């Protein structure tokens, strides 16, 4: 059977994580192609709904990557995002999708290695978790996840 290729959405802040992703590129560090980055000015912009909708629309995992603690260009965006991620985790547990499908990471602009490592580790984790059960259910309507996948 072909290896499961999860789709992962990464909300990255312009000032740190997105720049770190560019750094990873300029250093030619490999990380899985599964990760698709959406640029935001600050992780403070990423609402719980953005994360939920990414999963509902079909992502297998979502992560938010912002600046290191205390480094936020906008002072507190990353700490607010951290709290929202925790909230979404709980919500996902409650609806049976699993909170481990969302995560918050912090890195500075110069940390290309950290970006690449984070992308790889998260992808691996989601691969182990398997496909987003909501997506499986949607694509196989009319039957319960466990039986059909």
């Amino acid at each position, binding site marked *: 059977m072909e290896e499961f290729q999860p789709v992962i959405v990464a909300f990255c802040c312009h000032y740190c994580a997105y720049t770190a992703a*560019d750094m990873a*590129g*300029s250093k030619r560090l490999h990380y899985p*192609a599964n990760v698709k980055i*959406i640029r935001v*000015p600050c992780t*403070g912009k990423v609402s719980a709904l953005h994360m939920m909708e990414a999963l509902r629309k079909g992502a297998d995992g979502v992560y938010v990557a912002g600046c290191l603690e205390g*480094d936020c260009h906008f*002072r507190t965006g990353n700490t607010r995002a951290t709290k929202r991620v925790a909230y979404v985790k709980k919500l996902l547990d409650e609806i049976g999708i699993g909170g481990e499908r969302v995560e918050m990471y912090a890195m500075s602009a110069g940390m290309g290695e950290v970006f690449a490592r984070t992308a790889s580790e998260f992808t691996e984790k989601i691969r182990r978790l398997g496909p987003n059960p909501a997506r499986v259910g949607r694509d196989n309507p009319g039957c319960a996840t466990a039986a059909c996948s």
Partner: protein
Amino acid sequence: MQKRSEFSNKVLIVGGGMGGIRAALDLAEAGRDVVLVDKSYSIGGLMTSLDRTFPTNNCDLCTLSPRLSESGRQLHIELLTMTEVEEVSGDAGNFKANLSSRPRYIDLQKCTACGECHRQFPGCVRFTPGLDHRAPTCMRYPQATPYAFSIDIDACSDVDELVKVCPAGAIIPDDKPRSHEVDAGAIILALGAEITDPGVLDTYGYGVYPNVVTSLEYERILSATGPTGGQLVRPSDGQKPRKVAWIQCAGSRGLRPGFQPYCSSACCMYALKEAMVTRERFLEDIETTIFYMDMRTYGKDYELYLQRAKNQYGVRFVRSRPHSIDPVFKDAVMTGGLDIGYMPYSSNLPAAEEFDMVVLSTGFRVSDETRSLAEKLGVELNDCGYAKTGSFEPVATSKPGIYACGLFEAPKDIPETLVQAGAAACCASADLSPLRVVQEKSENFPPEKDISGEPARVGVFVCDCENNIGGVIDVKSMAAGLKELKDVVVSETIGHGCSRDSLERIQEVIRKENLNRVVIGACSPRTHEAVFQDTLRKAGLNRYMLEIVNLRDQDTWVHTDNPAFAASKAKELMHMGVGAVRMTHPLADHTLPMNKDVLVVGGGVTGMKAALSLADGGFKVFLLERSNRLGGTAGKVRRTLDGQDVQAYLKTMVEKTESHENIQVLKQAVVVDHTGMAGMFKTGVQVGARMVYRQITHGITILATGALVNRPDEMLLGAHDAVMTQLDMDALLEDNPEGAKALRNVVMVQCVGSRVPENPNCSRICCQTAVKNALRLKELNPDATIVILYRDMRTPGMQELYYTKAREKGVVFVPYELEDKPGVVADGKKLSVTFTDPVLGRKVQVSCDCLVLSTGFVADEESTEDLGVIFRLPRTSDGYFLEDHVKLRPVDLPTPGFFVAGAAHSPKNIRDSIAQAQAVASRAQTFLAGDSINMGAAVARVDSNRCAACLICVRACPFGVPFVNAEGHSEIDPAKCHGCGTCASECPAEAIQLMQYEDDLIFAKLDGLFERTA
């Protein structure tokens, strides 16, 4: 006043470190032309090798630098790297400089920094992201860094092969040295300094024992991008150290060979930073000890930093300068351990302690190169090799028209360097022709086409970026496939997308196909957004109808190992881009007309200096003074440390200010209300004894409200005639020298009312003042006994020389602890002072006929609180105004258009106040130069129909911008919005959207991604 040049608009800046860059940006943003010269092949100076910077312990450059690239004013900066100054002739206003550039062997216009040459010929290509990791991220605007490689042609064995590997054809094997001639009205020397060589301190064994490292080496070890990948390991055996020691003043504050006689000023703080970062990352495992003579944490809030290191991080402090470092042996083999031998301050017995690693806090010294350049330019240096400047002209060198800033002027830290850079820019600007209204060096754009009601017509352009993108994925077939997407009218490849030809091609297609939205698959929007936005604008489209898809940095560069994945990801990213671009709508940059008048609050030396600097530049200034006379605290000071007459200086300055045609002085003036935003402020003041109300309209506000001279009820001050403050002593020495001469026993106590829980910070001026007055007393009466009781003597930079002189003259310095303050009792007309002598280890009692208390400053809390409320500005916990960024924007307040200078920022002496006054004048000119201010388009917008006035945005905004207006809904002033989007994501009514990042645009990206995979 220096006569201005009538025609020159250009400044030559030598040195591309932090100081040079700051001065260049200030001048460029004010419409001045700058030639920035650096001998290295990329700019950034010393700071780029630091891991993190105090006191925020952040990678501050990363936090700030994105702002540097926004202005687009770099069009005024010509950067010449690998370039040196050969000769300068002429005078202020009319210099001619001959420069020579070494060959780079790379065409900067063509190099895309793809790295192909470096991969294939690592030995002969200079680009070291490992050691200089911020180069591509932080100094990335194309005219800066520069974002390009350089070739070491001598190291290259096969030049022809090297030329072939470059896909951009950027290598020029026969590149020649070039000489340039530059005409400049003024010159700024930001030459920096070098690090002292610890190898010459023979008893420390640097270079002999591998585990003795310098602080800069230690920074590299800590750095995530350093040689150890951020692992803290000691060089000898790659083991993690358990005990690390710092030795301060390794090369500074010494008279022995190898030592500089002055204090290097920055080392105490960086040692604290290194120790704290070490503890933070490896808390449980690593003990950190700092050996010091005096902890010199005299800057703004630095004392709190020291307390944090002590109390929160458990850094240990030992007051002693170690005499030697010896290796530890076990079975006749060196273990890598190091014994530090020292004499504890409070004991007569020598001590030794073993550490796994020792960091030498090396200081600064002037390089021979700098000395010879100064000589060539006719700039006088002091005995230590730093530029000679005066107390009242802190950045002016001995040669008119040439200014010094940063380490070249004296040892200092980054904020002070940046302040001086601003001051130098201000002075240089004053030598140039009057500031003209900035003619933006940009093309005239055609009028914007109205596309309202039009269906989306999307054009897709895919760049192959030579082989960077096209070499990994098949861009042609991808572009063809994208034609199938909804609303896509044309989809094609464009070769090297950012080349002039390609940009013209995009414009042509936009016009021909009547496109109204564009997606470009290329490199990072971080670097190229502005270029492509301009292209749209030139074709008559709104610049925000654009989506850039990062195919290079985030796809093809990453997935070279799996082209099939790279191709499918590229396609998905493009789908996301097309989905998003369909949701874009025209946005307007927020621009405001600029009112060019300036309000300066505070009529002390700082306020007057700022007012005069701007008034001389042709700007109208309103100078508010609370009392009925100008002069502020300086009115109470007679002499500076170097003996200058403060009152004479002040008198001239007051006369100049009061008679200046561009300055309106309003005395007995109190600010009562304030509205508006940068460029259009309105401030209400009540003036004069009758408190007449008037409203002032202005574009810039400068706060120079000073601080209060402290006079605490301590040690019989005010209760006994023989007890006085240092200011009283200063006046006594000047006004009644006979009376001062008669004093035979004088005791001075430092830190009275400073560095105590009620006023936790260091007042900064007291140590130098005590030394100054002690020297003057000694001059009058060499036989006088003077004892100075201190906690840490804080005489940074060249002030150290006066401290040394005082000790030579026989002034006795005895340290005391906060827990064991000196006791004072009256003894008739005399006083009896009791203190603990740390060497004897017991109480000593002395009798004196005069007790001088160094009482320093306290914040003028009442004023800063009132003004803080009226202007909505933040303050520190002890009541000083809080600047936007302690490290990199020391005189900018967080609200655009507000600046702070002088003692309202933190305690400082006249010299530093003047430098800050000039720096704010320079920063203000960057605003005043334009006729309008561009606030960008990424601002939050409230839909008033949805708003429930719940106040969540008001509470969530990190900058306090939203408020509930008179109509009862939230309002966000686009001029104040920083564009983070926090309010938008917290609004429970979904009433707020952040422009450029609207929710529907983000959801469209997700739809674009999943449409296919579904």
